């Protein structure tokens, strides 16, 4: 293949008045053509019928918060920079149905998987794609296609997209691709690339599909003078952007500055309106909206563009993890320029400048990077996004995480507390049965949003979910009766490192419903009891009636080989057990934690207090494991809701060691 490309990769010449021939060949393949066109005062991307729809003789100018279409002297069609839209609108549409849930006589059914491959999406051809766009597409490819969960909708749309790139000639003042190492030259990721001159185009190919298309045009080779002029076009674009910024320290600089006063300063101007994220060609955060009929018996789950600037984006039942605009701005900028490297091995920014031009308040990320991230103006060797992207730090097998919701049956349920139930589920799904302690599932009913639920026991023929009715969706789950069904996706996330226990003392600390994800770990302790040192279990609850698994805990407490201590935050006179916070159970204990491994689950504040006491007892941060709650929405690292610094809690966690979390565990609003 590569040879075939090479042999035909002689630059060709396409006269200006024959551009429609290229479009016609693409259309003959059944493709819809998406290209730039002038509409509503901007050069936008839209379906075009032919070259006549392209913005001939029109240019654009952009500065922070301002964009205008201009009239040019020449009649070139691509002498403009990028408008507000990117191909993302088609490869990753703002709204896409991803799942259909139904209540049938045989129980709930979920057709399609999430994400569901769109059945035969219309094949697309993009014309006029810039180097920065190609870099953005590459980045989204990596996010959606190379992770443990694959977005099937994206894959289907992307696979059918043909990319006709165009060399950039006239960047605007908001462009900074040279700083991000993504342009202006088109180097990779395209099918065909054009360089526009006054009287025609230099045509080069970049893929077998491109070869086929260009061959069909039977073009003659481009002559030398045209080639020279083409080189000047690209060189001119590079010069127009001036000196690139020095991005060398930005990765460390941003993560090292969570308390920088610059965040509060920019938050005063920031409208948290989401424009920057929605014009960004790489931002991929989404939410799912349920659209059901009146009685909730049929429900379509629709994936919708969302933004980390929305207040509700990081919200869980207890409140938002990023309540302030400054927290959200920090999340966005830090993610884009810093933690994206940790997650995906590249920057999340391609330097297209849309977030600068289309910010109504005119906030310029370049200035914020200079203030907060210590980015200087000195030209430095460039980082190559594309090369870096191949060096993703995590070894993962794409598509290894279950994406479908399977129907499981409720065999019965046990009431734990006034608002918490344990559902006993039966399933034959082998992946579910093979889950590890600490993993979770997304559980759903038609018309309700999916909720992350800890697996509280694995059985040979099913599993237990312990659910607190914290909102309508979880309440509906707790009300399921024997014989009913629900949809479950999982097992998800990284569980407890069970193997760490071997040969060590084990300390388990649970607060409230935090005991649920620890129960399978306790089961594992019992199974492996002989291989472990001392096993100490400390349980805290709000009141005596809020304790989980009371009988079971009572039986455990009777065992001689396990120490179980319980306390409640407050109690009436009838309670004869301990009262006080859970750390009091061991802050005066005499055991030595230097050969112990600790597992903690509970409200975040309780885990912070607990980990300090554990540390004082000699358990180091790399042997203290916690499981975190975040707004996990997809559960597989594709929706962006549960980010914590460089982590996706759903995918990289929810179990983390304190050593892994570092300051992220205690930084406010991260």
């Amino acid at each position, binding site marked *: 293949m590569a040879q075939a490309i090479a042999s035909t990769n002689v630059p060709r010449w396409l006269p200006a008045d024959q551009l429609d021939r290229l479009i016609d060949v693409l259309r003959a393949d059944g493709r819809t053509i998406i290209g730039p066109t002038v509409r509503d005062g901007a050069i936008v991307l839209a379906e075009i019928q032919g070259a006549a729809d392209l913005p001939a003789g029109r240019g654009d100018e952009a500065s922070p918060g301002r964009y205008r279409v201009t009239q040019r002297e020449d009649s070139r069609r691509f002498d403009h920079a990028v408008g507000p839209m990117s191909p993302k609108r088609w490869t990753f549409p703002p709204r896409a149905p991803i799942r259909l849930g139904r209540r049938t006589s045989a129980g709930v059914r979920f057709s399609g998987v999430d994400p569901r491959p769109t059945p035969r999406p219309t094949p697309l051809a993009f014309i006029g794609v810039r180097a920065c766009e190609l870099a953005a597409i590459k980045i989204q490819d990596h996010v959606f296609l190379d992770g443990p969960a694959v977005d099937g909708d994206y894959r289907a749309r992307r696979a059918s997209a043909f990319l006709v790139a165009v060399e950039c000639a006239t960047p605007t003042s908001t462009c900074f691709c040279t700083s991000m190492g993504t342009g202006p030259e088109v180097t990779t990721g395209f099918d065909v690339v054009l360089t526009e001159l006054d009287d025609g185009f230099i045509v080069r190919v970049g893929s077998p599909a491109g070869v086929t298309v260009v061959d069909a045009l039977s073009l003659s080779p481009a002559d030398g003078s045209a080639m020279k002029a083409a080189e000047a076009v690209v060189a001119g674009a590079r010069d127009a952007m001036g000196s690139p910024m020095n991005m060398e320290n930005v990765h460390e600089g941003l993560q090292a500055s969570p308390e920088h006063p610059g965040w509060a300063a920019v938050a005063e101007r920031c*409208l948290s309106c989401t424009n920057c994220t929605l014009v960004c060609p790489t931002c991929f955060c989404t939410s799912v909206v349920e659209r059901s009929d*009146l009685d909730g018996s049929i429900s379509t789950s629709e994936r919708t563009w969302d933004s980390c600037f929305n207040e509700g984006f990081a919200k869980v039942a207890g409140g938002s993890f990023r309540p302030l605009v400054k927290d959200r701005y920090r999340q966005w900028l830090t993610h884009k320029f810093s933690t994206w490297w940790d997650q995906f091995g590249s920057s999340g920014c391609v330097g297209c400048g849309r977030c600068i031009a289309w910010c109504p308040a005119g906030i310029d990320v370049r200035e914020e990077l200079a203030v907060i991230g210590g980015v200087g103006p000195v030209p430095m060797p460039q980082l190559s996004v594309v090369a870096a992207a191949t060096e993703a730090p995590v070894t993962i097998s794409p598509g290894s995480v279950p994406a479908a919701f399977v129907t499981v049956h409720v065999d019965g349920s046990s009431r734990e507390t006034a608002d918490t139930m344990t559902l006993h589920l039966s399933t034959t799904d082998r992946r579910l049965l093979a889950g590890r302690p600490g993993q979770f599932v997304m559980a759903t009913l038609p018309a309700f949003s999916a909720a992350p639920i800890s697996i509280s026991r694995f059985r040979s023929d099913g599993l237990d979910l312990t659910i607190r009715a914290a909102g309508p969706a979880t*309440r509906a789950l707790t009300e399921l009766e024997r014989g009913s069904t629900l949809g479950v996706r999982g097992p998800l996330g990284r569980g407890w490192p069970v193997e760490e226990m071997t040969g060590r003392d084990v300390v388990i600390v649970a607060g409230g419903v935090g005991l649920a994800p620890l129960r399978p770990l306790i089961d594992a302790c019992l199974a492996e009891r002989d291989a472990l040192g001392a096993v100490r279990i400390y349980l805290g609850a709000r009141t005596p009636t809020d304790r989980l698994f009371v009988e079971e805990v009572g039986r455990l407490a009777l065992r001689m080989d396990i120490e179980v201590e319980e306390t409640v935050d407050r109690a009436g006179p009838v309670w004869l057990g301990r009262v006080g916070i859970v750390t009091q159970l061991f802050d005066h204990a005499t055991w030595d934690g230097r050969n112990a491994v600790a597992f903690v689950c509970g409200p975040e504040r309780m885990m912070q207090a607990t980990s300090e006491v554990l540390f004082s007892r000699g358990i180091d941060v790399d042997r203290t494991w916690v499981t975190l709650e975040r707004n996990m929405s997809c559960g597989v690292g594709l929706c962006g809701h549960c980010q914590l610094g460089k982590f996706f809690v759903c995918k990289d966690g929810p179990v983390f060691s304190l050593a892994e979390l570092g300051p992220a565990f205690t930084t406010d609003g991260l």
Partner: protein
Amino acid sequence: MSPTARRSGRRRPRVGVVKFASCDGCQLTLLDLEDDLLAIAERFDIVEFPEATSRRSAGPFDVLLVEGSISTEEQLEELLRLRRESTTLVTIGACATAGGIQALRNWSEHGPWAATVYPRPELIESLAMATPVADHVTVDAELRGCPIDPQQLLELLTALVVGRRPQLPDESVCAECKRRGATCVVVSQGTACLGPVTRTGCGALCPVYGRGCYGCFGPRNDANVVSLIANTAGLDDSVASTRLAGFTAWAEPFRSVIDDHGGPPGAKP
């Protein structure tokens, strides 16, 4: 009521639709749900809806949809009575949630205003201020908008039947504007637009139609109006009070910013 109880269909929820000072447009939105109206009427027992039915009921109501702002003493008394009769009270529209356009009179002396419209203002029974329902009673949920969005109304009703939280996101008009692929009128034309500080729900109607948002869904939670005025094109101090003084002018933080700019246009006699 639990979803299972709802589905078992023991009893249809009793619904009332009532109005105070308003244009009727929000309750009309219920009748404008043409495709779903009859299904809604099957799921709910609409016991009070004077605009649509001659049957009347004084309560009790499982769900009461309240349109309009509180503008007279009698309306206030009636509202207090209705609250006692209602399990879930939902305000529908800008008048009920924010006072509506008629709340602009709250910046002025009432007497002279009435005199400009009525030859004998002393015969007018009207409170000096037009106020939102939540100023007087607890409101369980609100549908924003002037008028409300039919899809949001349907979502609310569906959520009530199914027993889930209605999906009424508190995000900016911009978010929907971008999803719809409209070009930002602030950036591309320098048009004054309240989109960044206004709650979505309308489908970014005005920007899609080439004009700036005038805030009829009211301020969102993080509305940074000060920065909007200071930093966006088209909306400077000279037009701020006019643009904000619309259908949700009485809602904070719009109200304070209007105060800071000397009140709405025409506030003085």
